C-alpha cells in the first residue's frame, strides 16, 4: 500500500520500520520494541502533515528516523524522489541542510553555555555555508525573522522565557536554509497564550519560504489548525490518514474517534453536549506485541478477526485511508 498524491512530494516514506532491541539478559534473546511498524505516507511540498497519537505511539521516532538520527530497520525514505535510506553520515550532510528539526523542550535543547548568536551560527559554521562577517549578518537576519531583538544576541538561554527560547530554536533550524522541518511537539511545553505566537511564526515562515512541515503533536485542535493532512498513530502503526477536514468531520477509526472525543472543548455548551468516549485501560506495551490489530484490547467493536490479522491501510476515498476491519 502506498499513499501518493498527484502533487510533487517533498518527503515520502514507504513501509518504514524502526525496531529497538532491548536486552533481556546475558545469552537471552533480546526483546523487540516495535516503535514504528510499517508506516507509509507522503508530504507534498509546501504543505503540513500533522502526526497525532498518545505518548509512546512512535510519532517522535518517525520524526527522528526521517532525519536519519535513527537508522531505519526496514523501509524507504525518499526525499524529493531520491532514496536517502542508505546514505552514510557524510552523504547525509547535504540533506541535513535541507531537513531540520525544532525540538519539544526549549529548556534542554539549547546549550546553556552558548550565547544566542553562537547557537544560531553553529549550523552555518558546521556546514560551511558562509564565512567571516557574512555569518553574523545572516544571524541578525534570522533573529529578526523569528521576532527577537538584536540585543538578545549576546544573552544566554537562561535569560529567556520558554516562548523566546522556542524562537531561538526555530532560528537555529532556519540557519541552514532548510526546505523541510520536523516540528516535534514545538508548543507543548509552552503556555496557551505563547503557543499561538509560535504557531503564527511557523505559518508566516511557511508562506514566506514555502516550507514543508511534519508537525508532531498531541494537541488535536492545534493540529487541525495547522495541518493539510493528518496521520493518527497508535502503538507504532498508522491507523488513519486523511485530509484534515475530512478526518475531523468524517473520522472512521474507533481510536481516532475516541482520541478526538477525549479532548475537552473549551466551550461549556459544547462540553455539556459532547459525548465523550472514555477508553478503558492503558496503551499496551510495544515490546513483543501480539499479532492482530494493535488497538483491539481497548476497542469496543473488536471482532474475532482483529485478534489474528492486522488490517492494512485501505483507501476509503482519495483523501482518506483507514486501517480497520470494520471498513472492509
Amino acid at each position, binding site marked *: 500500500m502506498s499513499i501518493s498524491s498527484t502533487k510533487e512530494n517533498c518527503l515520502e516514506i514507504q513501509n518504514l520500520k524502526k525496531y529497538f532491541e532491548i536486552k533481556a539478559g546475558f545469552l537471552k534473546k533480546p526483546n523487540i520494541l516495535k516503535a514504528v511498524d510499517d508506516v507509509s505516507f507522503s508530504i507534498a511540498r509546501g504543505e503540513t502533515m500533522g502526526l497525532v497519537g498518545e505518548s509512546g505511539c512512535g510519532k517522535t521516532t518517525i520524526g527522528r528516523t526521517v532525519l536519519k538520527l535513527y537508522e531505519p530497520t526496514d523501509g524507504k525514505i525518499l526525499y524529493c524522489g531520491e532514496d536517502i535510506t542508505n546514505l552514510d553520515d557524510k552523504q547525509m550532510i547535504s540533506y541535513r541542510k535541507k531537513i531540520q528539526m525544532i525540538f519539544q523542550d526549549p529548556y534542554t535543547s539549547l546549550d546553556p553555555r552558548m550565547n544566542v548568536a553562537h547557537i544560531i551560527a553553529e549550523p552555518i559554521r558546521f556546514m560551511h555555508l558562509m564565512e567571516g562577517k557574512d555569518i553574523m549578518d545572516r544571524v541578525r537576519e534570522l533573529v529578526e525573522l523569528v521576532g527577537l531583538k538584536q540585543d538578545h544576541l549576546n544573552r544566554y538561554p537562561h535569560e529567556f522565557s520558554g516562548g523566546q527560547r522556542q524562537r531561538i530554536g526555530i532560528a537555529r533550524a532556519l540557519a541552514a536554509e532548510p526546505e523541510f522541518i520536523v516540528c516535534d511537539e514545538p508548543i507543548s511545553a509552552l503556555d496557551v497564550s505563547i503557543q*499561538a505566537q509560535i504557531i*503564527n511564526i511557523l505559518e508566516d515562515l511557511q508562506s514566506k519560504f514555502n516550507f514543508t512541515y511534519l508537525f508532531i503533536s498531541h494537541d488535536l485542535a492545534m493540529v487541525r489548525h495547522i495541518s493539510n493532512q493528518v496521520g493518527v498513530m497508535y502503538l507504532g502503526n498508522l491507523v488513519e490518514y486523511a485530509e484534515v477536514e475530512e478526518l475531523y468531520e468524517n473520522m472512521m477509526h474507533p481510536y481516532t474517534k475516541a482520541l478526538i472525543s477525549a479532548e*475537552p472543548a*473549551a466551550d461549556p455548551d459544547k462540553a455539556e453536549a459532547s459525548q465523550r468516549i472514555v477508553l478503558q485501560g492503558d496503551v499496551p506495551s510495544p515490546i513483543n506485541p501480539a499479532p492482530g490489530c494493535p488497538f483491539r484490547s481497548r476497542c469496543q467493536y473488536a471482532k474475532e478477526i482483529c485478534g489474528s490479522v492486522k488490517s492494512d491501510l485501505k483507501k476509503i476515498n482519495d483523501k482518506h485511508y483507514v486501517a480497520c476491519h470494520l471498513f472492509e
Partner: protein
Amino acid sequence: MSDTNTDNNVLLDVKNLYTGFTTDDGLVKAVRGISIHVNQGESLGIVGESGCGKSVSMLSIMHLLADNAILKADAVTFGGEDLLHKSVKEMRKYQGNEISMIFQDPMTSLNPLFTIGEQITNPLMRHKKMGKRAALEKAAQVLDQVGIPDPQKRLKQYPHELSGGMRQRVMIAIAICCDPRLLIADEPTTALDVTIQAQILELMQKMKEEYKMSLILITHDLGVIASMCSRVVVMYGGLIMEEGPLRDIFYRTGHPYTLGLLESIPKHDKQRLVPIYGTPPDLLNPPKGCPFAARCKFAMKLCQEHLPQLTEIGEGHRSACWLHNPSVKAKRGEVKLS
C-alpha cells in the same frame, strides 16, 4: 468583600492572601492579595499561566510552602475554623484528611521507596486511627473505587511498576481515602495523554459526587475547566483578574486577559490565531498598575499607573479592569469584550 461569603455554605474562605519568597535577588511577590472562597460541594476552577500564583496560593492555604516563604492574610478559614494561625503540628490534622491535594506529576509525587499499600494506609492509620489490617482492607476498597484492577496485587507493588494514569489514580485514592471535604487538584491531568485525561476527569467527577466533596481544580487548560467546573477564577501576575460563573467567563467575558486566553485557542476555522503578545510580568518587580497592561490591547495610561480593583459586572461575576470603571466608560464608551 461580597455578601455570598457570609452565608453558612462557605467551606473555604481566604481573604487578602499575600505570599512572597525571599531570594538572593529580592522578594518575589508570587501572590499579591487575593480573596477566594469555595462553597460546599462546589467545583471551582483556577486558570492562569505558569507563574501566575495559582499553585502557590493553594500551597499557602495548606501550609506546604518552602522555608523562604512569607505568608500574610486577613483570614483563612475552613469550615468556620481559622487555618492561618495553626502550627505545623495542628495543620497535619487537616492535610490529607479534611483537605487533600493531588499534584501535577504522578511520576514524582509518589514515594518510590514505599509500596502503594504503605502509601495509602499511612493517612488512614494516622488520621482515622485504623489498625494495619483494617487500613489495608479500606485501601483495597478505595483502589477498586478509582478503577484499578486487581487491587490486592497493586497494594504490594511499587510506583515504578505502574503507568502514569495508574499512578494518578493511586494519587486520587490516597487523596480521597480519608473522606476529605475539600480536594485541591493541581494540574491533575497535565502530564497525561488525552485518553487517560478523560478517564481521570470522569473519575474525579464521580468521586466528587459520591463523597460530596468540594473541588478546587488548578489548570491552564480551558477545556478542562469548561467540562469540570461551575465557577472560575482567572489569575495573572499574582492577582485575580476575573471571577464568576463558568458561562459568564466564557460567554460574557469581562477581562481582556480572559479574552486573550480564549482567543489563543484555535477555532477549527483555520483563521489566523490571535496570540497575547509579550511575556508575563516579572514578580520580583511587579508593575505598579495592572499586571496585564503591558500585553493588553485595550490598555490606557491609567492602567499602567493604578491597579484596578475587582468590580461587580454581573451576578457573582467580578472583573479587575479599568474598562468597567464608570468614568472610563463615560469617556471611552462601552468596550465590547466577548
